[in-house]
């Protein structure tokens, strides 16, 4: 008898990887992004599979499209905004369909714990006509991932498994099984299926529409759509982790649990609606389900208290929506200091931002650890929109100032600086830079090369030349790339050397034309080296220059003199370089 070993405590992401492994998935491609990252990281660890990081999600989906065409089962994983980046191949792969099963794990972030927006991947499924499954917990994540591969091949279509942060990052015990190997499915050349030029695409469009109707029927018969009848006064339609909240909050209510939310299983919804007196949809941070159920012609009841349209929901929010009082709670009666995340002690991004702040530059930022340069005391960023936007937005600011009338004089004089990380540059900064060069753009573009994709957990990328398996590969030489693009002014600078940082900015400001600075120094989390801590001498003049670089090891004593916490200090010496009076020394210097 098998017992203990067939069950493991797995997160939703790990469970999707496990399901893909069991389904005989051969190729995995992803780009990191919270809350999806561990999916590809754990898939890569199984024997008999091949996995890699792509430079971005569009590339990931295209690699998977090719592997699928050649007959392999493929898994792609990314966060919700990554689906925007891959939308182009995704929408057309819905026309071509697949050969080997192709499954996309897309992880949404209701509550925006680590994202720039709260978009709902189900609208992409609707737009692209791609079926979308929603597991409610890790055990289902494993089952649905397996099912998704079969469904993909049966219906000749990529399948999305949608997760949310509370599915991806919830751990439960998961039953695991053996891998079933799949030979490559035979490939036969078929331009009418794979060459999407108008004549063929027009036909495939009709195939896509028929497939949606077939999938609607499939859903209504499938056991991933489950009507749970209890008290029939209240009937709730829900999916994903919201189902778990609903069961907790409303244990007596009848529930229609939708394991597939695109296309909606109309017949199953109709029979559920017939059985219950009042029909509700409960969902979080979106109106996808309620609008689509309503679009099918069902009339929904409204809960006595509204469910907030944004943010993640919880059992208490649901109970309250159906009329219950919220539980009583205690709140501290004093003021609490906020505790935002901050750049680590020794972070190589810090001195660049302290300089940008000093320069009073207009800084178009990007996404990564360096987005934290927006927070006090560095307060150096003007914008952060999406990966790659820093460089192109800097170009846009320059254009507006150059060609616009009535430009404020102070605004016109500020240097414009785009700031982007190494992984983000490889992801989508290269084409932005190309656009600026091509169009004779101006300004200063900084590439913060800390030798890793730090924010999402120090993954390899094409700039540091480390693979998903942590093996060495080709390193992109950014300076050479800039030269090849005909950027006239490129500097490579050690970002831990304040003098060099200052000089590089001075030079770039004086240069007439586009200037690129590659700031290079490894992330502290990568090297994890702790040198002797620094100390502040008696001569401290309380000027706060060192405190204003926002190091978590740096504070002030009661009299306002700078004070270094020796357990937090890693001995990088940034503060010593900043101090105008030479009052900070390493304890190693005695």
């Amino acid at each position, binding site marked *: 008898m098998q017992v203990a070993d067939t069950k493991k405590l797995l997160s939703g992401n790990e469970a999707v990887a496990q399901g893909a492994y069991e389904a005989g998935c051969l190729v995995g491609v992803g780009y990191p992004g919270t809350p999806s990252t561990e999916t590809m990281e754990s898939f890569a660890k199984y024997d008999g599979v091949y996995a890699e990081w792509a430079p971005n999600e569009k590339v990931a989906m295209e690699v998977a499209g090719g592997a699928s065409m050649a007959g392999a089962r493929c898994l792609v994983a990314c966060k919700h905004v990554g689906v925007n980046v891959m939308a182009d191949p995704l929408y057309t792969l819905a026309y071509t369909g697949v050969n080997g099963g192709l499954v996309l794990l897309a992880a949404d972030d209701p509550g925006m714990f680590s994202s720039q927006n709260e978009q709902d991947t189900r609208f992409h499924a609707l737009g692209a006509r791609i079926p979308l499954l929603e597991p409610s917990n890790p055990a289902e994540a494993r089952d649905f991932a397996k099912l998704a591969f079969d469904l993909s091949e049966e219906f000749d279509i990529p399948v999305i498994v949608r997760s949310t942060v509370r599915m991806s990052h919830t751990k439960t015990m998961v039953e695991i099984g053996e891998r079933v190997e799949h030979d490559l499915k035979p490939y036969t050349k078929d331009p009418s299926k794979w060459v999407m030029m108008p004549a063929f695409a027009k036909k495939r469009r009709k195939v896509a529409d028929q497939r949606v109707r077939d999938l609607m029927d499939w859903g209504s018969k499938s056991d991933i759509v489950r009507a749970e009848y209890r008290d029939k006064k209240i009937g709730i339609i829900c999916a994903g982790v919201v189902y778990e909240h609903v069961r907790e909050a409303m244990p007596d209510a009848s529930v229609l649990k939708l394991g597939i939310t695109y296309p909606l299983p109309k017949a199953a919804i109709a029979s559920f609606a017939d059985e219950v007196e009042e029909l509700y949809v409960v969902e979080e941070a979106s109106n996808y389900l309620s609008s689509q159920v309503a679009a099918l012609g069902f009339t929904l009841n409204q809960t006595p208290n509204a469910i907030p349209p944004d943010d993640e929901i919880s059992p208490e929010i649901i109970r309250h929506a159906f009329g219950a009082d919220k539980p009583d709670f205690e709140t501290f009666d004093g*003021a609490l200091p906020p505790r935002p995340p901050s750049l680590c002690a020794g972070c190589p991004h810090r001195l660049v931002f302290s300089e940008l702040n000093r320069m009073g530059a207009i800084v178009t930022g990007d996404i990564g650890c360096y987005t934290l340069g927006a927070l006090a005391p560095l307060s150096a960023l003007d914008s952060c929109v999406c990966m790659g936007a820093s460089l192109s937005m800097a170009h846009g600011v320059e254009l507006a100032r150059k060609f616009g009338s009535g430009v404020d004089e102070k605004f016109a004089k500020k240097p414009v600086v785009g700031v982007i990380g190494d992984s983000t540059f490889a992801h989508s900064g290269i084409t932005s830079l190309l656009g600026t060069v091509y169009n004779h753009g101006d300004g200063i573009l900084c590439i913060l090369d800390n030798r890793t994709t730090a924010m999402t957990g120090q993954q390899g990328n094409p700039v540091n030349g480390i693979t998903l398996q942590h093996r060495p590969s080709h390193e992109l030489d950014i300076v050479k790339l800039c030269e090849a693009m005909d950027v006239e002014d490129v500097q490579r600078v050690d970002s831990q050397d304040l003098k060099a940082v200052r000089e590089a900015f001075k030079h770039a400001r004086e240069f007439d034309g586009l200037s690129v600075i590659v700031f290079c120094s490894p992330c502290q989390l990568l090297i994890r080296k702790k040198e002797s801590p620094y100390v502040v001498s008696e001569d401290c003049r309380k000027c706060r220059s060192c405190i204003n670089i926002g190091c978590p090891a740096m504070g002030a004593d009661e009299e306002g003199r700078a004070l270094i916490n020796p357990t937090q200090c890693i001995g990088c010496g940034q503060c010593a370089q900043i101090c105008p009076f030479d009052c900070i020394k390493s304890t190693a210097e005695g």
Partner: protein
Amino acid sequence: MATEINAQSTGATAVASKAVTVVLCGVGGQGTILAADILAKVAAASGMQVRLSEIHGMSQRGGSVITIVRFGTEVHSPVTDLGCADRIVSFEATEALRYLPYLNKNGGKLLVNSEEIKPLPVLIGFAEMPSNTVEYLQKHGATLIDSSAIAREVGNPKATNIVLMGALSKDLDFDEKTWEDVIAKRVPPKTVDSNIAAFHAGRDAVK
């Protein structure tokens, strides 16, 4: 049609027996996730259903963090709400004040590492630490232990989280042996002894 479950016809009761909700909070980097993982495994090894919910990403860079562990004979939601936590284990004292609203006012218990860590806004002079953290927590029935000092005493300063799990274990119905087994499997091999020692020191601290 799709699967149907009919609780009415079988007469089965749908009401879940109440799950226990533990909130672990602190400062990014303090080891809340490892502690939560151990607690979840102990509960699972004791035959319970478990849900563990953690937040990755941004907040880990020294920000305020919260991890939720729920266990019982039947558990559904991985999250909790204000006024609903049966236990709060705070790895840092001011964070206990921040997450206090989660505590169930009827019987919830608060276990706190008395150490206070200043966040960046305090260090740069943009905000102040509350002056009465410990007194306030004591007045509200919190159990305070200096788990950082205890961890240093047993020779493993990083084991603050395990000291707190030891203290928590006094108050939960799981076998001491199960805790020891799970900890031994989960921590780096070289640190098993000092972590087990930290666990017992934590247990003794709340006698």
